[in-house]
Structure formats: structure tokens, C-alpha cells
């Protein structure tokens, strides 16, 4: 049950269900709804056992309605084709999404919060980066005072002791060995939400200590270590170039899973700002308790997120997309080394190598667009985020739209553009040099089109070989092994005859080679056994 609420009361939480369609399909009628409505906010005595995804959606809507004025729906989802409007100038197209769509500036930190990832806010001063991060801390159940005290403010004099803690002075004097020195660890290390403000102002040496904590989950001082719980990280920086007072070390940058850009303020919403001023409301101080997550709930959220399946058609498209970037036919004679890593290790750049002819259309081939490929870490981050996004949207499995909307945000700081790629010189493509989100969105779209053109959903011969191998080798007779090896060789011959070695073909060929080697080893063993 509940206390009465005024319309647009800053503590008003959106009425559940926030996604009615998902509700009707997945959940039963709940008797507690009888006493819930416009005049209410839940009270522990009759609070219904809301689904956690619903709770996170309510948190999202509370933030966009009352905390962060971000009237943008840049993460668009559609159930049917959206109405579109083309404007003059450079031909901007405006779409009206037909399914609930979201503001990246609020949604991405929330997904980071739910999936325990690492998020970097970038943008000019006063855009709400720190405030959003603090909100995440409050959503995790900490008081506003605790969160404020736990925010690590980057500054040029920040030491490792400032960041992690201090050895007890008494122990320093009296200790006979390093093991006797006790450390007064900073409290923020044990929190589930960690906030580092202006991380690009932290001195390099202290950044290394931060890296250990962020990457490996422990802190170390004087041979003493402290394990930190799995947590969501929020870092802020005033620009996206890693500038600031100190250059951010590459390894630290690489550990960041997602980069969120602050959006500018739309003056049309000045009245909302005015109301904020008149009422003196500080959103982080009035977060409704019904959208605050307990530690157990956060664990359960994480468990549920991990369970969201990625169906094969979606996973295949993602594999197809990811395979495009690392491949370079000119990098090596051996198929295994035809990657951009080979070029980088040799001290060359893709642009210098790609200038030579490899027999491909470099406008269409995605491999020409980047200097590097996708790391395992960034793919892991994407898999985590798409599962979280699908779960947040009330889906039972990851959809292609989830991947299409999430990939740009995870990859836009990871993929380095090849400035000399002919792709960017095409009419209308120059903007992709500036807007990297749109660039990756476009690349994913082109990749999916190519996947559909090749009809790989229906004509993917690797599927049968995969399935046969997945059934295991135990008890497979020699004739069957030979037959499967023969099928692999036949397929390789067909591929070699029918197509150039495109990026996805290289992946297929490597997998076929892998299977062939596994089967041939097994065959050797069978022959030895007699």
C-alpha cells in the first residue's frame, strides 16, 4: 500500500507494467494491483513481488521523468516499420519508433549497473555525468552520503594511498614483517557501485593501481591484498580523447566496456529545468525506495541476465559481423595470420597495407574500414550487454535489434577507423568519420544485409558439421570419421572454387580445418587401437 502522490511528484514511480505487452504475455494477474494506482507508491506491507526487470524499467522511467532531463530516444526499437520524415539540408531522416525506445545516456549506465560492467561517461562539464553515476550508487542501496563519500575524485596529487587506503602507522613502526602491517582499506573498495570522477586527472602510477582493482578485482598495498566484490564501475572524463591532466594508460582504457556520451540540453525543456530550480529538488536525494535494489536483488538480476539466451540466427549474425574487422588477406600467406594483429606487430598500419590490391571491393568490404579487429574483451562486453538489454526490455531472448542497438555503444571506442578507406569517401559517408555510433550501426546493417544476401541462415553447411561434432566422438566408427573428413574436404574444395577468401569465409575455413584436425587425430587413435 502506499502514500498518496501528486501528479509528477518527483518521487512518483511509473505504474507497472511499463511494457504492457510483455506483461500480458508473461505474467499472471496480480491481486496486489487492486490497491496500486495513481494515488500510490508501494508500501512494504502490500508491495507486490515485482519482477526485477520491471523494477529496473521503473528505475529507468523515474530517472528520465524526474532526475535527468534527457528527452532523447536515440536507442530506437520498432515492432513495425516506423514513420519517417526527411528534412532538408544534408537529408536528415527522423524516425518515430513503434516500440518503447530509450535514451542511451540513462539506459546504458543502468545496463552497466545491472550487468556489473564498466562504463565511462564522457562529455562537457555540467552535463550530469557525475550525477548519473551517483544515482547508480543510490539505486544500489547506498545512502547519498555514503555514495558521495565513496566517489573518487581524480586529481593530479592523487596517491595510491588516497585511492586504496593506508597502512596503520602503529603497525608500520612495530611490525616485524610485512605480514604484520594492517591496512585501513578505503570503504569504497567494498561497494557494489564504484565511481571514479575525472579519471583522466589521476597520475599514471595511481592509474596502475586502479587498473589492478578494475581489471582483477583486488587492491594491493605493501603485500596486503583486499578482494573487491563484483561491481559496476562508473568513470567520468571531460573529453573522449583520454586527455585531461594525465594520459590514460591504454590498458585502463581497454578495460572500459562501454562509453556513454552526454547529450546536449534541449532548451525546449527549459520549463523542466525551471521547476527543478523553483522546487530546489536534488534527484539523487529523493530516489524512491521502491526502485532501490538490495544486494540480493542485484545478485538475482545478474543471474537472470546471464540466463537470457542468444538464439542461433542472432549469434550467427553477430559472428558474421565480428569476423569482418580483424581480417586482412594481405597480412600473411598463412590463413591463420591474415589478421590486422599481424600488421600491427610488424609496425605497419592497415592503411599502408590496404593500399595494395587484394581483389576485393574496398567500399563494400568492412575489413577496409578499421585499423584493428574486435578483441575478445569487447565481444564479451557486447554479449553481456545484449543479454542485459534483452532482459531489461522484457524479452525472453536476445533479438537482432538488441544487438544492433548495443554494438555501436560497445565498439565505438574500440574500433579504430582506417582514414584512408574508400568507404568514407563515398557520398554521404564522410559523416561516419565523426559520428562513430552511426558508423558502427551502419556497418552492422551492411553486415546483416550481406548475411541475408548469402542466405546463411538456410545455406550454412557448417551447421551440419557443427551438430555432428557436438554429438561427441565417442563410439564414432572409423568409416563415419572418414566420411565426415571427406565432407569437410569436399566443402573446402567447394568454397575454394566458389568464393574469394572473404572475412567470414576465413572463419569458416579455420573452423573446418579445426574439425578436420580433431577428426584426423581421433582417426589416428582409432587406427592405433585397432
Amino acid at each position: 500500500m502506499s502514500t498518496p502522490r501528486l501528479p509528477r511528484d518527483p518521487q512518483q514511480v511509473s505504474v507497472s507494467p511499463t511494457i504492457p505487452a510483455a506483461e500480458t504475455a508473461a505474467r499472471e494477474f496480480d491481486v496486489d494491483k487492486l490497491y496500486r494506482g495513481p494515488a500510490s507508491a508501494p508500501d512494504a506491507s502490500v508491495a507486490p513481488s515485482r519482477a526485477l526487470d520491471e523494477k529496473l524499467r521503473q528505475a529507468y522511467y523515474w530517472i528520465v521523468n524526474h532526475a535527468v532531463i534527457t528527452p532523447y530516444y536515440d536507442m530506437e526499437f520498432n515492432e513495425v516499420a516506423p514513420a519517417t520524415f526527411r528534412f532538408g539540408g544534408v537529408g536528415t531522416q527522423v524516425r518515430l519508433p513503434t516500440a518503447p525506445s530509450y535514451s542511451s545516456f540513462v539506459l546504458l549506465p543502468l545496463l552497466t549497473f545491472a550487468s556489473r560492467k564498466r562504463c565511462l561517461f564522457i562529455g562537457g562539464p555540467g552535463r550530469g555525468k557525475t550525477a548519473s553515476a551517483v544515482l547508480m550508487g543510490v539505486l544500489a542501496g547506498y545512502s547519498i552520503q555514503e555514495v558521495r563519500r565513496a566517489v573518487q575524485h581524480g586529481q593530479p596529487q592523487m596517491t595510491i594511498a588516497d585511492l586504496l587506503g593506508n597502512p596503520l602507522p602503529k603497525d608500520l613502526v612495530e611490525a616485524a614483517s610485512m605480514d604484520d602491517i594492517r591496512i585501513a582499506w578505503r570503504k569504497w573498495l567494498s561497494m557494489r557501485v564504484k565511481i571514479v570522477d575525472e579519471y583522466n586527472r589521476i597520475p599514471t602510477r595511481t592509474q596502475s593501481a586502479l587498473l589492478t582493482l578494475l581489471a582483477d578485482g583486488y587492491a594491493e598495498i605493501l603485500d596486503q591484498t583486499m578482494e573487491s566484490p563484483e561491481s559496476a564501475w562508473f568513470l567520468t572524463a571531460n573529453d573522449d580523447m583520454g586527455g585531461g591532466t594525465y594520459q590514460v594508460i591504454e590498458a585502463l582504457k581497454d578495460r572500459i566496456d562501454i562509453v556513454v556520451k552526454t547529450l546536449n540540453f534541449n532548451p525546449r525543456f527549459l520549463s523542466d529545468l525551471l521547476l527543478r530550480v523553483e522546487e530546489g529538488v536534488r534527484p539523487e536525494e529523493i530516489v524512491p525506495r521502491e526502485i532501490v535494489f538490495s544486494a540480493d536483488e542485484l545478485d538475482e538480476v545478474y543471474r537472470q541476465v546471464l540466463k537470457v539466451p542468444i538464439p542461433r540466427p542472432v549469434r550467427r549474425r553477430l559472428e558474421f559481423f565480428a569476423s569482418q574487422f580483424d581480417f586482412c588477406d594481405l597480412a600473411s600467406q598463412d590463413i591463420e595470420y591474415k589478421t590486422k594483429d599481424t600488421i600491427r606487430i610488424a609496425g605497419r598500419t592497415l592503411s599502408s597495407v590496404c593500399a595494395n590490391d587484394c581483389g576485393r571491393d574496398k567500399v563494400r568490404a568492412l575489413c577496409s574500414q578499421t585499423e584493428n579487429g574486435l578483441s575478445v574483451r569487447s565481444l564479451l562486453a557486447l554479449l553481456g550487454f545484449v543479454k542485459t538489454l534483452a532482459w531489461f526490455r522484457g524479452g525472453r531472448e536476445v533479438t537482432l535489434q538488441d544487438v544492433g542497438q548495443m554494438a555501436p555503444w560497445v565498439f565505438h571506442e574500440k574500433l579504430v577507423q582506417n582514414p584512408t578507406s574508400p568507404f568514407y569517401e563515398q557520398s554521404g559517408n564522410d559523416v561516419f568519420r565523426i559520428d562513430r555510433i552511426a558508423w558502427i550501426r551502419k556497418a552492422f546493417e551492411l553486415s546483416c544485409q550481406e548475411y541475408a544476401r548469402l542466405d546463411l541462415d538456410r545455406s550454412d553447411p557448417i551447421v551440419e558439421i557443427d551438430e555432428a561434432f557436438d554429438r561427441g566422438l565417442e563410439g564414432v566408427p572409423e568409416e563415419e570419421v572418414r566420411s565426415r573428413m571427406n565432407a569437410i574436404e569436399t566443402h573446402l574444395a567447394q568454397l575454394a572454387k566458389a568464393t574469394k577468401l572473404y572475412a567470414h569465409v576465413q572463419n569458416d575455413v579455420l573452423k573446418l580445418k579445426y574439425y578436420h584436425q580433431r577428426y584426423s587425430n581421433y582417426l589416428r587413435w582409432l587406427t592405433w587401437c585397432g
Partner: protein
Amino acid sequence: MIEGIAAEWLASRRNELNRRFERTRHRHPLLSPDAVLAALSEILPPLAGPDPRCGDLLSSVYDLVLLHAARSTFASRPWIGCLLKDVFPKIRHLLLQKPATLPAALSNAVENMGTRGARFVDGLRRLAECVDDADLLVDAGVLLAWRAGEARLRRSALATAERLPGRVVLATLELHDLPPAAAPVVLDALRADGWHEPRRLLSDRTLETLQQASPSEVEALRKVVAQVPEIPLGQWRVVGRVGDFSGFGGTFDVPPLVLDGGDRHVLYTRCGAQDFRIDADAFGWVCRPHSRLDLPVRSVAAPSKFGRMVTRLTMSSRAAVMLLADGTLTVGKESARLGALAASSSFALLPALVAAARSDSHRITIVAPEREAV
């Protein structure tokens, strides 16, 4: 003009209350100060008193007045006004137990009941005399909502009713003239068969007996009413009609088909490409869209020109149940012609119940055994 304790309370919190009004008007520029003042002058004085928690109660009711005045709910749902003006003073002792939450919860419940809200408000008025605990009122509210036609609450209401005193159960079911001992008997009867008005389940003689019945006699009676009697098909009667044309406030754009599934109080239907779930019993029905169901549609067979006997002989072994277009219902070896089922387009045979739809009607006819009073 407000006087007395309510006036003192308003004066003592003048600035804060004015700010709350201004904040509401900021979002609802048409909010009329006069309308709010008029409502407050009617609603607050009867709720004011010397009780220590009276301030909290007045504060939450003040917010409710702002909320409903801003959204014009007083005009669009007049029973909200009845709740605040007539019922709240009667249940003031209960509101004072939970002043911050109970008024809002009841207001929400009345709103959620839609057009059935008026009946819910009447029920609350009845309960004022027999309930002395706020939590009990909340529990009884579930039963009230079910009685007012919110059929989805049937299961929860029956479970909740087990915990309520007999006189409260009977008051919510509009049976306050029955002896409290009748409450468990009525509940058992409703649990087994919700298609008969509870008042008609027990004969006057049984009611008289119940006044002085021993526990074992009550137990025996409960066993009797908890079973749906086996009554020949020929004595089945129309016990309800559910669903309606969307133009008349229902859900169906075109006449629906009944899907073969559900139970005595849950039906599934298909209208165009959309499936629906209907929760229904003698108190009312609620129809809601449902995700696509994999349930068959039992079509109605045309009678054979050679007569019913030939039709039965040509029935496939699967079709141990058949409904002919003339309303002849065959279930196993039993057969009877029920006029209400004539010209049906589809039907479902559920435990001791047949639901049938017609191609010229948006309503679904429910036929079940006609029960006699015990």
C-alpha cells in the same frame, strides 16, 4: 468555510499545503483553486479530530483531493467523491490506523475497478460497521472487488476469505442477513461452482438449521455443497452470458470463437487474430487479450438429414462430444437439445459447463447444471 480542527490544521501548515497545490497546478494549469477549496471544505472537516494521527490522515486526504481535482476524477468517476465524502468519515477509525497509506490504497482500488467502482464503494460502506482493523479491511477489499465483478480475483478472494471472520465474509458478499455459520458453507459452494448466486445456494430451512447447527452438521453441509451435482444434460440452463461488442464497452470487434480449453471460470476465445482470456462467474466477467494460444476450436456439426441417430453413428471416435446446429448436445452416451445452444458457431465443453459462441452475437453463452438450493 472550514472551521474547527480541520481549519486549525490547514492554518498550521498553510505554506506547505499551498506549495503542494502550486506544484500540482504547475503540471495541471487548469486546476481550479475554487474546486479544490470546495472539495476540501466538504471532505476534511468530518475527518478532523483530536486524534494524534489525524494530521497524517488529513495530509494524505489533502493530496488525494489535489490529485483527483487535477485529473477531474471527481467528475468522471463520481464514486470517487462518494468514497472521500461519504465512506471515509464512516471508516475514519480504520483510516487512522494507517493514515498515510490506506486512503490512497482505497482510492486506487476504486479507480482500478472502473465502472464497478460504485459497487465497491457501497461495499466499503457496508463493511464500516463490521470491520475494526485496517488490515482486515484491505483483505476484505479483495473479496469486495470480486463480488463487484472483478472475476480475476476469484481465486485470491476465496483464499483470503478463509482468514476473514464469517460476518465480514457475508457482509462483503451482500449476505449480511445470513448467520455467520453460513460463511464457510457459502465459500465452499462458491469454490465448487461460481455460476450460482450464493443467496440461492441454501434453502430457508437450511439457514434456519444453521443458526443452531453443531460443527459436525456444518461440516456435513460443507461436503454436500462442495460438489457439483451430476444433473442430466436436459436440465442444464443458461447461467450467464459473457463478453460484449467493443462498441458497447466490450472487447470483441466481431463475434468471437470459443477455444476448447480453460476451466469452469476461465474461458479462452479468439476474435480475429487476437486471443482473449475471460475470467467469469456469477458476479461478473473480465476479458483481457492473451498471448496466442494453441487451443483448438470445436466446430458445430450440421444435423444429418437422416436424423440424430445417423449423426451419432457417423461421429468419429474422437468426437465423444458433439453439438449440432439445432442445439443438440451429445456428451458420451447422453444427449439433449438445449435451445440456448442452437445456431452456435463454436463451443467448449468444460467440467460441468458448456460455453458457446454464435456467429451473430458478440456474447458467449454459458450453460451449466441448474442447481437447487440445499
